[in-house]
């Protein structure tokens, strides 16, 4: 029996075989979708760039060279230089670290928060559900960007506060999904079986309910990444996110604003990085939805 046959076996002998087989089927389905592959490559490129930034960037992201101010793109400076003579390509490369940090932290804060709130609401039902979902609905009915702006205004500018503000506006969508998923299997037999053998509420929620929500959650978080990147860049553009001299893409565009009419590259280049990465997450999210969540029918 070849490895492939073992993976695709209809009656797996062990749990490991079943899990590996499922992973194999999903990854082949994902790799058949050209847009998803493009998205995956872009996200991997982002990871690699962030990881190997010192080796990729030809110059320091903060090293000034006033002799080489505002040079147009050339063989030496692929994306030109900014008003302090810094190499824009090097700054964009280092900026990938900040973008990655922001999206990772927002996801790590808001997804579990939303998951737990939604699962608790769906599992217990009744008044708990009404209170939690009431709060969720109010947050959902407000404009996200404005809410994030107001939170940063109160907390003060800075990258940590920007991350907190974005996370505060991102969780309600996840709570809705987790609640909807929880409701579908709350009364299923295997949950009742765990209850009968004396599993506590916390154990049921964390061991048996939450794992089942993860696949739709992964899809949603990936699709939301583009929005998170744009909000973070927007906060940076307004001077409320990452502070200079950090090479955050939105803040870089803001610096280039003064020169947009004559030295267009200063503001334009970081924008291409934002578009590329956001598109990558959109493509990947679309593909993942088709694979993990076929009932949603992304093909439509």
């Amino acid at each position: 029996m070849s490895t492939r046959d073992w993976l695709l076996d209809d009656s797996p002998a062990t749990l490991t075989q079943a899990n590996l087989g499922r992973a194999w089927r999903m990854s082949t389905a994902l790799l058949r979708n050209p847009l998803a592959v493009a998205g995956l490559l872009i996200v991997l490129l982002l990871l690699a760039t962030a990881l190997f930034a010192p080796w990729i960037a030809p110059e320091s992201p903060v090293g000034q060279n006033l002799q080489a101010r505002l040079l147009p793109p050339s063989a030496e400076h692929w994306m030109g230089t900014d008003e302090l003579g810094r190499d824009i390509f090097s700054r964009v490369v280092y900026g990938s670290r900040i973008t990655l940090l922001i999206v990772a932290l927002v996801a790590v804060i808001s997804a579990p928060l939303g998951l737990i709130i939604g699962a608790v609401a769906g599992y217990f039902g009744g008044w708990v559900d009404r209170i939690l979902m009431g709060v969720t609905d109010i947050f959902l009915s407000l404009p996200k960007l404005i809410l994030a702006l107001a939170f940063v205004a109160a907390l003060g500018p800075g990258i940590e506060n920007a991350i907190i503000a974005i996370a505060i506006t991102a969780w309600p969508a996840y709570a809705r999904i987790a609640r909807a998923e929880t409701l579908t299997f709350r009364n299923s037999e295997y949950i009742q079986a765990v209850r009968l053998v004396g599993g506590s509420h916390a154990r049921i929620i964390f061991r048996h309910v939450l794992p089942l929500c993860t696949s739709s959650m992964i899809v949603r978080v990936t699709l939301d990444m583009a929005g998170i990147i744009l909000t973070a860049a927007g906060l940076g553009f307004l001077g409320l996110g990452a502070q200079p001299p950090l090479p955050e893409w939105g803040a870089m565009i803001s610096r280039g604003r003064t020169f947009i009419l004559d030295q267009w590259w200063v503001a334009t280049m970081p924008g291409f990085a934002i578009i590329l990465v956001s598109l990558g997450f959109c493509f990947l999210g679309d593909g993942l939805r088709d694979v993990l969540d076929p009932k949603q029918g992304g093909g439509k």
Partner: protein
Amino acid sequence: MATDATMAVRAGRSAKGVGGFVVVTALTFLGLLAITFFIGRVVPIDPVLSVVGDRATQAQYDAARVAMGLDRPLIIQFFDYVWSVMQGDLGTSISTNRPVADDLLRVFPATLEMATLGILIGVALGVPAGVWAATRRGEWVDQVMRVFALLGYSVPAFWLGLVGLAFFYAGLGWVAGPGRLDIFYEGLVPARTNVMLIDAALAGDWDVFRNALAHLVLPASILGFFSLAFIARMTRSFMLDQLGQEFITTARVKGVPEWRVIWVHGFKPIRVPLITVIGLSYAALLEGSVMIETVFSWPGIGNYLTTALLNADMNAVLGATLVIGAVFILINKISDVLYRVLDPRSKG
């Protein structure tokens, strides 16, 4: 936060009809007030400092502390806050030294003008584009529309504004630059509505009208692009649902001309859900205009908000947040009600 309010939101949801709608909307507003109150009084380490600014003297600081009633319980402070907002009192802005409510009333028409033209562009182009993509499913038109729609989710609005300015204003000279009017046209027409196009038309001054339009067309088109991406994608999805139905096949078999199949049999039923989509994108445009206004120095509510943010002018920030949030909620609720009134299935 507002647990009483939120419980009642759910209770209100089960209530039917107009009464239920009013209750739900009122409670959502109360939730919005709870959030702005929370942001203004609980989140900052020193709320007084965030209102008076760090250049205030000790006497000003103490006066503001008493005026804000910070020595009283939080819940009393909240009711005070709700009461003053209901009377139209949003506090005084430390940068303009005027009541925030007056400031907002003055700047809001500019935002409304830009967002309205934006949504008109989005609907006029987005709906036909979506229908076209649906009838050519899988062909190049459809693929182009798909990439276009995803770009709508991936391009930063402020970046597109800057690039647009560099290209269409500085490069080609097709449109006018930032601001609402060229400086020598300012003050020529009386401000009746503060919507520049209407004011100019009322005064019969077509030079001003043309100049205002030249300033408006680029930011409105950029806003329009974002709503176009969303509207086209939703239209396509609704149309595909319809075109897959059996009555469409029946109509085709009967020999109904293809344009009639698409626009009458296919398109007619989706007009109602499209209203909701358009309402949602209109509300989203009000939010998107914050970034666009900053780039185009457009004297609307978004520009007011970002200026206040940079001056740490908390009353102005919260007032603008409140107004944008309230309009956002109102548009959403109205499109919700329209959907219910217009959809024959929901009657009875």
